[in-house]
C-alpha cells in the first residue's frame, strides 16, 4: 500500500514475512536523463542503507534494514509507528517542544560525532514514537564526513526547516537544538560548528549582516 509519494522515492507499507515493513523504492524520474537517473538512484540506495546502519551503530534510532534490492533500487526496512515531528511540533506545550528539540539536537550531535551527516534534516524526517523515542529517517542525501563545513550545512538546514515550517518558534527550537548538540559533541567542537553556520549563512545571498 502506497503511504507516501515523496520527491524521490515512494514508500509502501507492506507485510513481509509476518512483519510490517516499509518498502522504499526510488523510482525512475521521467524528467531525468536515463543515465543520470540510474546513477543517482543506485548511489542513494547504497548510501542510505549504509548510513541508516551506521547511525544505528552510533546509537541513533533508525529503522532496521532487512533487505536491499539494488536492481529495483529498493530498501526494505522496519516500519516505525509514530508521528512526524513536523505534524506535532507547533502544537506541543512550550516546555515539551523545547525538550523535544533538545533531544533532536543531541541526536544530531551523536550522528556528527560518529562522522555521519544526515543531509536533509527537516522535521518531516523525524518520527516520534508513542514511547517518546525520536527516529531519524531518510538518509538519502547523507554522507560520511567529519568536516566542520558538512556539519555546519547540516545544522543550517535544520534551522531552515524551522524557518519555513515552524516560523513562530524558530528561536526557541533552534536554541534548544544547539544546546542538545553542544552537550553531546562537546562545547569546543560545537562552537566551531556554530561559527561555521554563521559563515555559511553570510555566504548565502542577500544576508543583511555582511
Amino acid at each position, binding site marked *: 500500500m502506497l503511504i507516501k*509519494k*515523496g*520527491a*524521490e522515492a515512494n514508500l509502501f507499507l507492506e507485510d513481509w514475512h509476518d512483519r510490517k515493513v516499509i518498502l522504499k523504492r526510488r523510482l525512475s*524520474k*521521467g*524528467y*531525468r*536523463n536515463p*543515465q*543520470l537517473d540510474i546513477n*543517482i538512484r543506485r548511489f542513494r540506495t547504497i548510501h542510505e542503507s549504509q548510513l541508516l546502519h551506521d547511525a544505528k551503530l552510533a546509537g541513533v534510532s533508525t529503522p532496521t534494514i532487512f533487505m536491499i534490492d539494488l536492481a529495483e533500487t529498493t530498501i526494505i526496512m522496519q516500519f516505525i509507528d509514530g508521528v512526524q515531528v513536523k505534524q506535532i511540533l507547533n502544537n506541543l506545550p512550550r516546555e515539551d517542544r523545547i525538550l523535544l528539540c533538545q533531544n533532536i539536537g543531541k541526536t544530531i550531535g551523536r550522528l556528527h560525532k560518529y562522522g555521519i551527516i544526515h*543531509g*536533509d*534534516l*527537516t522535521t*518531516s524526517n523525524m518520527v516520534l514514537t508513542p514511547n517518546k523515542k525520536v527516529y531519524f529517517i531518510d538518509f538519502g*542525501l547523507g554522507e560520511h564526513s567529519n568536516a566542520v563545513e558538512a556539519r555546519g*550545512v547540516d545544522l543550517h*538546514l535544520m534551522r*531552515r*526547516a524551522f*524557518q*519555513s*515550517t515552524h*516560523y513562530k518558534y524558530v528561536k526557541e527550537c533552534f536554541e534548544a537544538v544547539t544546546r542538545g548538540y553542544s552537550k553531546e559533541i562537546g562545547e569546543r567542537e560545537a562552537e566551531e560548528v556554530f561559527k561555521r553556520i554563521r559563515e*555559511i549563512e553570510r*555566504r*548565502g*545571498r*542577500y*544576508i*543583511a549582516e*555582511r
Partner: protein
Amino acid sequence: MRIKKPITYCLGVESTAHEFSCGIASSTGEILANVGRTYLPKEGGIHPREASQFFSTVAGNVLNGAFKEAKVKPSHIGVVAFSQGPGLGPCLRTGATMARALAIHLEVPLVGVNHCVAHIEIGKHVTGVKDPLTLYVSGGNTIVAAYEAGKYRVFGETLDIAVGNCLDVFARAANLPYPGGPIVEKLAKKGRNLIQLPYIVKGMDLSFSGLLTAAIRSLNEGYKIEDICFSIQEYAFSMLTEVTERALAHTEKKEVLLTGGVAANKRLQEMLKSIADEHNAEFFVVPAKYAGDNGAMIAWTGLLAFRHSRTLPVEKSFVRQRWRLDATSVPWVEGGLT
C-alpha cells in the same frame, strides 16, 4: 447614481542588474507599458558602475518610451514604484534616484518594491495562478518559495551562485556569444553524451559553483561543446526539479509557477511540468516578455503595495542591496486582491 472608481496608474522602475526598464500598470489590472534597455558589458560580467552609467544615459528615453507605449501622460501617474532591492548598489541607486525625482515632481507617493516579490507577483498576475509553489530562477537568484502567513517563505535556495549565473559564466568561458543561456540551450539540443559532473543538493538547497568549475574544466579536456552544454543543463535542471519536487511534496501546493529569466528555457519547463503532473499540480510559466527583469512587474507589484498603503517617504527610500524575499511582508496576498 454610481460613482465610477478612478483608475490609478503606477509607473514602475526596474534597475537591479543589467536591465533598465520602465513599466506602467493600471489598477484595472492591465499592463500598459514595458520598455527596457539592456547593458552589454564589452567583456566579462556586469560591471556595476558601468552598468549604472549606462542606465543614466538611457533612462530618459526608456521613460518616454513607456509613456508613449501606454498612451498615458505623466500627469496621470498616481504612484511611482521602484525596485528597492536586492541587487547591485550603483544600479539600484540610479533607478531609485529617477523614481524619487519623479515622485516629487509629480507630487505622488513613492513605493519600494522587492525585486523577487515582483517576479512572483507578475507571474501570478499574467498566468492567473492563486497560491503557487514558485521556482524563481535568474542570473542573480535561485529560490523555491511559497506563501504562508504574510510572507513568501523560502524553502530552498542556492548556497552559492545562481543557476543563471552558472550558465552565463560557463558560456563566457566557452566564448559563446551573449546572452549565454539561450545559446547553451540551443547547443544542448545537439548534445547526446552525458559527461559526469557534480550533482549537489543539500536538503532543499543547491550549489552550482562546483558544477560550473567542472564544466569549465571539461572544456579543456576535449569534450564536444554540445555535450558539455547538454550535461550542464541536465545536471543543473535535474537539481532544480528535484528540490522543487521536494518542496511540492512538503507544501502540498496545487500550483507550480516558474518565473525569472531562466524560466524561458524549454528543457527546464518540460522537467518541471513533469513533476507538477506527477503531484496533480497545475504548471504555469511566466511568458517570455515578463520572465527577465522588467519594469512592468515593479509597476504591478507597486500597485498592490500602494493599495495596502505601503508607501515610502522619499527621505527613507534607501536602496536595500540584500533585501531578502522572506523579509518582505506581502499583505495583499491573503486579501484576495486582483
